[in-house]
């Protein structure tokens, strides 16, 4: 932390002092800060309490995921994708599996597609539940809402553990299907969780939807317009809260999403409140999808019998596969040169790109608003820094 007093201004060049109109305070928020959701840093310049400049600093969790993946086999990359957005490992698996399937033209059996939808939507539920809990925590509602949300999230994680053996690093999907079939009784457990979920949402909403403090803190804060959102490549709930009608489950209809009946909620203002409410509404739609998928789940194989996942060598070429992850458009861009490991492996990280407008959203707001604006973007540093 350094205070730019008149004396220190003299030592700065003219370019650096041009924007100074009074005493500005430069603070470094993060990388060790409870509200940054990981090791993320923002260099914030403050005029009193107001933000006049904000520069995000990345790379504290960088391990060059892409380089590691390029030295691995196609199958060996799969567990690494768990570590990108470690809250939603199953959707990461899905995006990668989809990209490889696009690259090699692999068909996925019916039952596996249903299992993907079920686990994918459960991932969305637990991600959004966790997020709204954290957002309340960031706003100062210490403890209680977060614990309520985590109680729900825990039920989903228990299902993941029963299915994949891990709560968070699920490593569940393979190109051409899924790794394992449902254990006995799992579907009943899932049904119970799904049917109980709206009760949690009702409770959470009635507690908070019209809460005066919540509304005062979030409405009109961190507004992103529709045009801005499209231009800055925002995706997922961030873009839809600004009114961009772009849900890849509807647009690309990847997997079997065209079989389900669900709506895409859209925001009007594009502020933090819209982003919060959008997640609540999205969870309700996910519950609907889950009910339909669990009802229609067919019997059958869960892996494409023609795909050899070990020693897998796709033909030379490239493919970009993307899915609607809980945080936005998660894409994988793969180039194969015919060898057993990808020549180029690129992750399109939704949370990094959703941070593009962070400065624009924060300008003119107070320091405390940065925390909730950042919280409403929903970042995970494992994916931002890769």
């Amino acid at each position, binding site marked *: 932390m350094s205070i730019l007093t008149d004396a220190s201004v003299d030592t700065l060049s003219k370019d650096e002092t041009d924007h100074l109109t009074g005493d500005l305070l430069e603070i470094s928020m993060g990388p060790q800060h409870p509200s940054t959701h990981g090791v993320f840093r923002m260099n914030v310049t403050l005029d009193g309490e107001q933000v006049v400049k904000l520069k995000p600093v990345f790379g504290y969790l960088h391990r060059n995921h892409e380089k590691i993946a390029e030295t691995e086999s196609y199958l060996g990359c799969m567990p690494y994708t768990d570590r990108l957005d470690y809250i939603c490992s199953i959707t990461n698996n899905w995006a990668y599996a989809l990209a490889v399937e*696009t690259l090699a*033209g692999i068909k996925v059996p019916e039952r596996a597609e249903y299992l993907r939808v079920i686990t994918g939507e459960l991932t969305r539920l637990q991600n959004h539940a966790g997020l709204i809990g954290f957002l309340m925590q960031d706003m100062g509602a210490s403890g209680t809402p977060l614990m309520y949300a985590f109680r729900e999230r825990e039920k989903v994680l228990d299902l993941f553990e029963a299915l994949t053996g891990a709560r968070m690093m699920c490593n569940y999907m393979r190109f051409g299907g899924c790794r394992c079939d449902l254990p006995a009784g799992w579907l009943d457990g899932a049904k119970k969780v799904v049917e109980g979920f709206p009760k949690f949402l009702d409770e959470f909403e009635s507690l908070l939807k019209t809460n005066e403090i919540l509304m005062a803190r979030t409405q009109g804060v961190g507004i992103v317009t529709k045009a801005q959102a499209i231009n800055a490549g925002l995706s997922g709930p961030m873009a839809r809260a600004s009114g961009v009608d772009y849900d890849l489950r509807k647009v690309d209809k990847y997997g079997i999403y065209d079989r389900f009946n669900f709506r895409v909620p859209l925001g009007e203002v594009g502020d933090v409140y819209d982003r919060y409410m959008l997640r609540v509404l999205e969870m309700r739609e996910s519950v609907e999808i889950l009910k339909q998928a669990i009802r229609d789940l067919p019997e059958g194989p869960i892996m494409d019998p023609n795909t050899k996942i070990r020693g897998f060598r796709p033909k030379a070429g490239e493919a970009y596969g993307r899915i609607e992850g809980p945080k936005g458009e998660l894409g994988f861009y793969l180039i194969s040169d015919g060898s057993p490991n990808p020549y*180029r492996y690129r992750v399109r990280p939704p949370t990094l790109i959703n941070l593009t407008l962070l400065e624009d959203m924060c300008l003119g707001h107070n320091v405390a608003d940065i925390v909730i604006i950042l919280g409403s973007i929903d970042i995970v540093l494992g994916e931002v820094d890769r």
Partner: protein
Amino acid sequence: MNLEEIKSQIEANVPGCRLEIIPNGSPSGQHSLLVDVEHGFAVASFLRDGATPRFDFCSNVTGIDWPVKEVSNKTKVKKLVDGVEKEVDEVVKTQTGGYLEAVYHLYSVEQREGPVVLRMRTEDRAERNHVPSLTPLWRSAEFQEREAYDLFGILFDGHPDLRRLLMWEGFVDHPMRRDYVDPDDYEYEPTAHDEVLKRAQAHRPAQEGGL
């Protein structure tokens, strides 16, 4: 939506640009459009504002490193060997690569079309590694171009704030290049082990003063 159509649209509207469709051998069928560096910005801005459909959403930006690679092709050639005409294998060596590539995946949110894969190639991998930045057109490219600069060393002309994104300031190399060699010692403070220290210095000439 057909890439040929888009190509002819661009050719009609951006005079002088050199376009080439790069076929994609995989079943994905996502062929891409190679644009020359001089007209890259004009082509991109036409795609954003003038084309049908308008590609208003730039989803993915990344770099690719293609080092020089020698490909030898065997061809059967008829030749006179000791006065008799025979079929002989002749090996023709051709060089490919030797450039860095910036790749953009463009979508249309309005028309729900895409992707159009736009590629630009630098002249070489050393000094002439410039391509135009498309950040003034799509802000989504801002961090992604910074990342491509950081990890591949592609210089994006016209980028408002081209700094390293993931590696720290003062890091010299570009880790995603194919010929990048890991330093044996990542620490700022070298270990006391002489051999390790020597090898580490060899990789960081600018920082450590070299050997």
